């Protein structure tokens, strides 16, 4: 395709970058048009983030060049990039919680009197004006810590636009947003688009790519695979481009024999949820859907003993049990993969071996001293079974990719051989390949007679993996859907969403 380079806002040409002996980028290219939402796709480690970090000046490329708005461009750091007109909204937001919205928007470019004193009033007025343009429902003097994650993200976007960014890079912007917040984000993106702002959109969520993006560029193993208008590709095409092999079924659900009731909650009530009743059977995968904050995770945290519940009863194999701490839950055979992997899943600086064996030490190491040979053997076995990709289990968890870290978390619970395994957003921030592997593992666990509960914000994931789906709405179970209803298409994504929003339609 021959085209005039001037029609692009950003052009990256033949960019290469190596870290030590690993070639992270091999002569890749990227061309972004003004007013375009450009999806960047690829498995974790494909080179997307490395390229973006080169664009905003966090890394310097070994070779290759960039032009921004027709002129040669090279940022020495994020501040440089913002000055040039490129801003990045990071996956993990880090604004100052104790500053006001106005202070955040004007951070590093404050309105001052004589260059020393802050001109608070002028700054707040200007900020209010900008907030109104985005119909943001708070005053500019509100503190950041009072906002929700979605609102903080919106502030970051507003900050980028107000600093006259012509290109905004969004890294997994919806990973912690619920459906409603996502819809709002998309409205803002469309608005920016109409103003001629280009957006590079990094996401693993296929649905969003098709909903919001105009063009998609795919990377694989540090190489540029291709760029296509989104209208010309199918889901299948994209996945094939990303993994370089045919993927038959993204969510390969295997139906297992469903046995007796393993776990039952009766009238469970606590902070964020009330009167929750459900049963899970052996071999069953129970999907839990609903908006973020609807009480899904809160219920599961209470069952696992991380939080306490106020009233209600829980039964395991027909016997009533009382759980006061995760230690109780683990000892009784209830394990939980937390949605917050970094905070509740792993000790990142310790080795995979220590992480995997941690909850299993009381059972597997009854003697005064740890039998390290046995520990190593058992951890290696389970890591191998779960296809954790690491050179050795002595490596730190920190050195692994998101997908592999998640597999380590699952490994430690599988070693505990639970009766009930709860997985909260098990595939968040995990690349396509690892995601399919995690789904396959869940089916294996169910086949062995484990009862599995999976919370997910991704409707296609819940719908394809679950034998039964509970839909949460404002702390209660708002509906129950059977697999047969989904297979016969008598219940669709729309119906589940409607239930999550309060059952407007049937």
């Amino acid at each position: 395709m021959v085209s005039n380079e001037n029609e692009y806002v950003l052009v990256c040409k033949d960019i290469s970058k190596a870290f030590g002996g690993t070639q992270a980028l091999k002569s890749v290219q990227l061309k972004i048009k003004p007013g375009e939402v450009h999806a960047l796709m690829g498995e974790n480690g494909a080179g997307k983030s490395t390229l973006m970090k080169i664009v905003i000046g966090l890394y310097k490329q070994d070779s290759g060049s960039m032009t921004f708005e027709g002129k040669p461009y090279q940022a020495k750091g994020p501040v440089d990039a913002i000055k040039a007109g490129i801003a990045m909204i990071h996956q993990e937001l880090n604004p100052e919680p104790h500053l006001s919205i106005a202070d955040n928007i004007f951070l590093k470019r404050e309105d001052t009197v004589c260059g020393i004193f802050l001109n608070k009033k002028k700054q707040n007025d200007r900020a209010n004006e900008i907030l109104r343009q985005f119909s943001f429902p708070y005053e500019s003097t509100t503190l950041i810590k009072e906002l929700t994650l979605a609102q903080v993200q919106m502030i970051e976007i507003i900050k980028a636009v107000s600093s006259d960014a012509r290109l905004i890079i969004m890294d997994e912007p919806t990973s912690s947003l619920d459906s409603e917040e996502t819809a709002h984000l998309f409205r803002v993106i469309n608005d920016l688009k109409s103003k001629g702002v280009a957006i590079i959109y990094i996401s693993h969520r296929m649905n969003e790519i098709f909903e919001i993006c105009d063009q998609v560029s795919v990377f694989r193993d540090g190489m540029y695979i291709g760029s296509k208008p989104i209208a010309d590709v199918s889901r299948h095409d994209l996945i094939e481009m990303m993994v370089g092999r045919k993927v038959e079924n993204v969510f390969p659900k295997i139906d297992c024999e469903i046995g007796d009731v393993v776990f039952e909650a009766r009238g469970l009530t606590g902070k964020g949820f009330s009167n929750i009743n459900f049963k899970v059977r052996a071999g069953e995968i129970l999907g839990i859907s609903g908006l973020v904050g609807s009480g899904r995770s809160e219920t599961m945290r209470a069952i696992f003993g991380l939080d306490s519940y106020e009233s209600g009863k829980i039964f395991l194999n027909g016997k009533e049990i009382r759980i006061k701490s995760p230690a109780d839950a683990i000892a009784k055979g209830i394990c939980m993969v937390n949605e917050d992997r970094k905070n509740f899943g792993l000790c990142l600086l310790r080795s995979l071996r220590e992480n995997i064996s941690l909850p299993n030490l009381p059972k597997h190491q009854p003697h005064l001293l740890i039998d390290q040979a046995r520990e190593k053997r058992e951890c290696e076995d389970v890591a191998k079974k779960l296809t954790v990709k690491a050179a050795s289990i002595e490596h730190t968890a920190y050195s692994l990719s998101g997908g592999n870290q998640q597999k380590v978390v699952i490994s430690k619970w599988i070693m505990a051989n639970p009766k009930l395994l709860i997985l909260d957003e098990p595939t968040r921030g995990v690349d396509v390949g690892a995601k399919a592997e995690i789904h396959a593992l869940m089916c294996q666990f169910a086949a062995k007679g484990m009862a599995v509960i999976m919370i997910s914000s991704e409707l296609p994931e819940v719908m394809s993996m679950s034998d039964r789906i509970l839909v949460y709405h404002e702390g209660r179970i708002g509906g129950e859907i059977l697999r047969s209803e989904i297979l016969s298409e008598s219940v669709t994504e729309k119906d589940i969403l409607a239930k999550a929003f309060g059952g407007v339609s049937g």
Partner: protein
Amino acid sequence: MIENIKISRKNNDALKRFMGNYGIGVVLIIMMVAIGIMEPSFATKNNFINVAAQVSINGMIAYGMCLAITTGGIDLSVGAQLALTSCVLGQTITNMNMNIWLSCLIALAVSTAFGCLNGILIAKFNMFPFVVTLSTQLVIRGLSQVISSGKAISLTSMEFKGIYSNKLLSIPVPIVMLFVVTIVMYLLLHWTVFGRYIFAVGGNVNAAIASGVSEFKTKVGVYTVSGLLAGVAAIIFTAKTGSAQSNIGIGYETDAVAACVLGGTSFAGGIATIPGVLMGIFIIGFIYNGMNLIGVSSYYQSIVKGCVIIGAVLLDMLMNKKNQ
């Protein structure tokens, strides 16, 4: 190509991890060679035995400190614990004429109890270890002044003083004690479930709790051990000086923290090794010993000590960076 890198990386891994953990050993050797060249009397058997006996006191305290730091905390009360234990010894042995072994047991029980109290305050009420131990330090030192009425109590029992001066198989008892405690602490931290829990609580307390680890038991355990070891240090100290005083042990927490840091104990928590701390203990010991032998005025000793610690930690960081 990537496969080849992976394989060669695997071969370097063991070495890299070793250097990451024990790179400070290189600093120790450089220091010993340097002092040895400047002062020939340094590299003698007698001097080494002398240093090893002296560092045994800081060694005990440093091991306890290492546990506290590894859980993400600190124990500033160890110096005061030393004084209180010493005063209890003086009071029971000299003034009450008690059997010295019974009195040692009582003294250890007292320091262990105060360590346990530190742990309960820290873990139960979620208070900052720095604040808790800073405060209990005042209480403990005050108590030791109350017990001794602020006066030095001399201990003349040869049997008691023998704890420092006697030899076991021609090795001074304090060195034997340091050796035994080092082995026990090594096993405790690296080979027991409790040790794993210490690393987990320090590395990521939320993940530890979500893995069934009791934060309370782990922290109480850690500060209790720290108290017990401060008590052991106090017995050696009092046997060495033959005098129980309420103003001893001031600033001892500094040397203990320094030994931990030199030994690669991370202040962020979750990372430490006992062999590393042992090397840190000896670096501190050789700094004192080397300067005394060379004849550096005591005014300059603390300046030199501070600079050597910063230099050693910097060097260690640089070496680790190069290895990454």
